[in-house]
Each structure stands twice: as C-alpha cells, then as structure tokens.
C-alpha cells in the first residue's frame, strides 16, 4: 500500500480529465447507438405503413390472386389459409406446451428430469425453423406423397411447444406456494389444485405466452415452404397444398412483377399489424400485474 506513486497536481488533473472524458464518450456512444438502432426500426415500420396502406383495399381481403399481367386481385386465400394452418398449430401445440410447463413447475421441480427437459426446450427453441420444415416434410409429406396444410400446421406446432412450455413454467412458479398449500390442506386432490388454483392464478401469463408463441409462428415462412407449399386457389382441405400469408409475400417479393410487389407490401402490413396487436395486447395484460394479486 505504501508504494502508491506520488503524482503531481498536474498529472492528477490530467488523469481526472481523461477519466471524465472517457465517461462522457461512452455515454455519448450509448446514446448514439440507441438512436442508430432505432433508425432501421422506424425506417422499416414507416416504409411498410406507407407502402402497405397505398396497396391495401377491400379487394385485397376478398379477392383471389389474379394471373400475371392483370391488375387487382387479393390474398383472400392466403389469409384464410394462414388462419387454418395457425389454428391447427395452436390446437396441437398449446395443450402439449402447457402440459409440459405444468409438469416442470408442479411435478418435476428440482428433479434432474425437469432440468433436462428445460434445457432441451431451450435448445429446441433455437433450432432453425427451416429444419422443422424438413422434419415435417420427412414425417408427413414424404409419407403421403403430396404437400399439405396439415404438414405445415404440424411444423408450426412443434415450434410453438418450447416457447409455451417455458412461459407456462415461469408463470406457474410465480404462483405463491401458500396458495397451493391452502388448496391441498382443504383436501383437494393435487390435479384439481393444479387446474383450479395454480393454472387459474397464472392464466393471464399463460395466455400471454401462448400469444407470443402464436405471433412468433404466424410470420414463419421457412417451415411452410415445403410443407404447405402455397396455393393459388381457395382451399380449406388440410390434405391439400394450402396458401399462407408469409409464403405468398415471399413468392410475390422475389417475383419480377410490380403488381405482385404491391400485393406483397399489403400482405406484409396485414401480417405485421396482426403480430403487433397481439404483442401489444400481451404487454398490456402482463403490465397490469395481474399475477401480483396472489400475495395478499
């Protein structure tokens, strides 16, 4: 401790100056970085709104695609197809996801099996969506020898499961232990406690998780490329190739026709409005602190 170098007053103030300058520089850099990052967001959203609104009209929602060269037409088939595929994915994915989350939070807490499942779910979450597409192709399309909306729904369902599992688990762990103990103490069987007490208390959060998973897969294109394939015609049969909004946007965006580009922008706007609404809704629901009510 006695070996501290003795500094002159000048050195001291120079050092202080340098430290302060460094501090201000980093602060400025952080502010600039934040501004720089917000630019593409604003640019994307602004351009999307501008391009999207100028190409949206009633026909977009009600008409079928028209052949190249003709103007007009819409994406009714893609919007409906997306709805059907997403409904199928939700029906398959949400129960499994919630069930797995319940196991992790209510039954397996602290066991190695639960940790292993958590870890697998996290890793599965990071698997590229195109790989899910290949898996669904190999499992369903290759076996049936034709593309189908069903295969697309299964691919999306697989993608929903890990997200829902982890949020359900997270939300259930915020339910206070006393609430469960109170229910069990009244002689209510465990399954009933889980369903009517734990799940019920955590419901807003779990719905949030489901909507986030839904929003995430709603815009997925890659897993649908060789499962649902896309379809220029109206189709409600899950056993046939089915149109989907993201697929249609992709097809139109990479095409050389201006009319199709216009439709692609319109489709992107519809897609993004749908996703933004659900994400914002989620934020409102969770922001209200519905879960903190359990404590009093």
């Amino acid at each position, binding site marked *: 401790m006695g070996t501290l170098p003795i500094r002159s007053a000048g050195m001291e103030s120079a050092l202080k100056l340098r430290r302060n300058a460094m501090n201000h520089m980093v602060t400025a850099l952080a502010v600039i970085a934040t501004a720089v990052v917000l630019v593409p967001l604003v640019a994307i959203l602004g351009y999307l709104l501008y391009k999207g609104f100028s190409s949206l009209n009633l026909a977009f929602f009600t008409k079928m695609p028209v052949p190249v060269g003709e103007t007009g037409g819409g994406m009714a088939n893609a919007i409906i197809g997306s709805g059907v595929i997403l409904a199928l994915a939700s029906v398959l994915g949400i129960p499994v996801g919630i069930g797995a989350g*319940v*196991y992790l939070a209510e039954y397996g807490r602290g066991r190695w099996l639960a940790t292993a499942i958590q870890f697998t779910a996290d890793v599965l979450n990071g698997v590229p969506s195109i*790989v899910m597409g290949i898996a669904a192709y190999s499992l369903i399309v290759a076996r049936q020898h034709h593309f189908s909306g069903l295969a697309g729904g299964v691919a999306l369902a697989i993608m929903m499961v890990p997200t829902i599992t982890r949020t359900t688990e997270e939300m259930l762990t915020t339910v206070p232990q006393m609430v469960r103990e109170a229910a069990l103490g009244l002689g209510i069987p465990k399954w009933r406690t889980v369903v009517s007490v734990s799940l019920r208390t955590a419901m807003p959060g779990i719905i949030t998780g489901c909507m986030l998973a839904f929003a995430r897969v709603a815009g997925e294109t890659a897993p649908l490329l060789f499962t649902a394939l896309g379809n220029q015609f109206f189709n409600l049969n899950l056993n046939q190739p089915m149109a989907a909004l*993201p697929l249609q946007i*992709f097809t139109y965006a990479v095409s050389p026709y201006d009319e199709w580009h216009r439709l692609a922008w319109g489709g992107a706007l519809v897609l993004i409005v749908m*996703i933004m609404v659900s994400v914002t809704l989620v934020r409102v629901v969770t922001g209200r602190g519905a879960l903190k009510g359990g404590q009093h």
Partner: protein
Amino acid sequence: MNEPKLIPMPQTVVTAPKMDAVPSGDAQPAQTRLAAPSVIRQFLNQKSSGRVPDGLFGGLMLICALSIFVIVLLIVFVLVRDSRLSLHAFGFKFFTGTVWDPVSGDFGALPFIYGTVVSSLLAVAMSVPLALLVAIFVLEICPQFLRGPISFLTELLAAIPSVVYGLWGVFVLVPIIRDQVGPVLEKYLGWTGFFAEPNFGVSIFTASVILAIMIFPVISSISRDVMKVVPPSQREAALALGATRWEMIRISVLRNSRIGIVGSVILGLGRALGETMAVTMVIGNHPDMMKNLFAPGYTLASVIANEFTEATGDLYLSALIEIGLALFLVTIVVNAIARLLVWAVTRGNAARAH
C-alpha cells in the same frame, strides 16, 4: 365465501388435523382408523380418494413434458434416415467439397458453409457493440421514463417476421448498399479486397446487415437480463471508490456479467446461422467463395429453402437434408453452449463471479 360459517366451530377444530392426512394418501392409516370418523371424514371417504385421477393427470403432464424429448429425437431420426444416401455417397468429403452440381450428382457443401459462417460472424461483429451499448444505455444511463418505450421498441424489432425483413431488404436495403454505401466502402476500404466491384446490392454484406438487425434484439435483451442480475452492492462499491459511471459499468457490471454476455452473443450467433428467409432474399444465392463481400453468396439455410421443392432425384434431396442435419447439429451445439453460459449467470450465483 359464506359456507364455512355454517359449520359449527368445534367440529372444524376437531377434524382439522385429520384433514391434513388426506392429500398425502395413506400416510397415517392407523391414526384415522383409531379415531371415530367424523362427519367430514365420512364425507371425504365417500368421495373418491383422488389418487386415480391424480395419477392420470400427473402421467398426462409427464407425457407432455417427455414429448419435447421425443420431438428432438424424432427430428434427429428422420434427418439421419433421409440423408443416409448422401451420407454414404460422400462421407466427410461432403463438407469439404466445393462443387455443387445437381446435374452431374456431385455435391459439396463448403460454399454454403463459407457463406453461412462469414455472414453470421459479420452480423455478430456489427451487432454486438451496438447491442451492448444499448443494453448499457437502457440499464444504467437512460432516464426511467424512456426505459419502457425503448425496450418495447426492441421487442417490436424482434417480432417482425423474417420475410418482412427480407421484403424491406430487397426493396430498400439492396438499393442503398448498391448506390450509397457500396461506393463509399469501395473508395476507403477497397484496398483490403473485401469491398470490390462488381456490387449488385445482393451480397453477403447485405445479408449480414439484415442479420445484424435481426439478432440485435436477442443479444441486447439477454445481455440486459444478465447485467440486471449484478447485485447493486457491486455498483455501489465501485462508485464509493470514486469510479466514474463508465468505470463503474466496466468494473462491476461488465466484469461480473461477462460470461452471460458471451452466452447472449453465442445465442445471437445461433439465430444468425439458421436464419433463412431474409438471407435468401438478399444474398444472391450463388455458390461461390469470394473474398469480396459484395459478391453474392449462399448459405446452408437458403440453399434448402431455394432448392428443396425442385430437388429431382433422391441423392439431390438427400444432400439437401444432410445440409439440414448439419445445420441442426451446429445450432444445437451452439445453443447448448450459450444456454449453459447464460444459466451459469442467471441461476443465482452472480455475486460469486469475480
């Protein structure tokens, strides 16, 4: 709410201890048999014990949880099964071969590996400084009222689908890179050989810019979570020693959370490696290995996206599936490492790190 009041007080007091035994099943059978069964006890005995539905429900939940394992195993199984043709035909040479010629049936994946690795690393290099600065800004510098809106905006950035990024990339970013950014980079950095003519706008560089925007929210939000775990006492200690705000951030925040930050960066890398649509739309899709970043490239994910439906012949399809298998295994490993690092920090022992 009113029902409990109807039961006479003494009765509830007497039966209360026995009711404890109900959930745990037959834990104390002797005790219950000795005491004369009360009214409530009789009532409860008449009802089913709940053990059968309990077991069924628990089993059902366990099946749901195990299905996650099953999904992963199933994916591995079908990928290996359907790529065995190409696995047998090419072996390890598949990953070192530079020729991708579906017509003559010669498949080598090196150009795609090159494109994937270069575009992802470039994206990470562009994204990490910005993401960390924004995380620091939101957590340590920005006034309280700005915190919510900024994190909301980054969340929105994460919610935009890949295909919309691609659409924006094709019509906005590609012309900008071709006409504005390209010439400037060529003029000042052209001597390195990384930025050279011809520049058509669709290139590895454009793909990495899009990827950088797409992985920014991942890195930023996770590193923010990791930095948040650093105990306030660490910050206070640094400040009490006379550190400036930056020194405090460097000494106590960044140093304590560095493992988790590395984890978040690797997580972002994993996302970039597997990103398909946006990259496919702007990278140019040409299997070349050029030093020039303005040259078109191809990635593992985009070759699958582009050629899968038109793959004629079993070997072609099987080669594409093998690329998918490689992508799957690489992202699994990358994600597993990243998750372990992030877990190491956020699971409680942040204060122990030094």
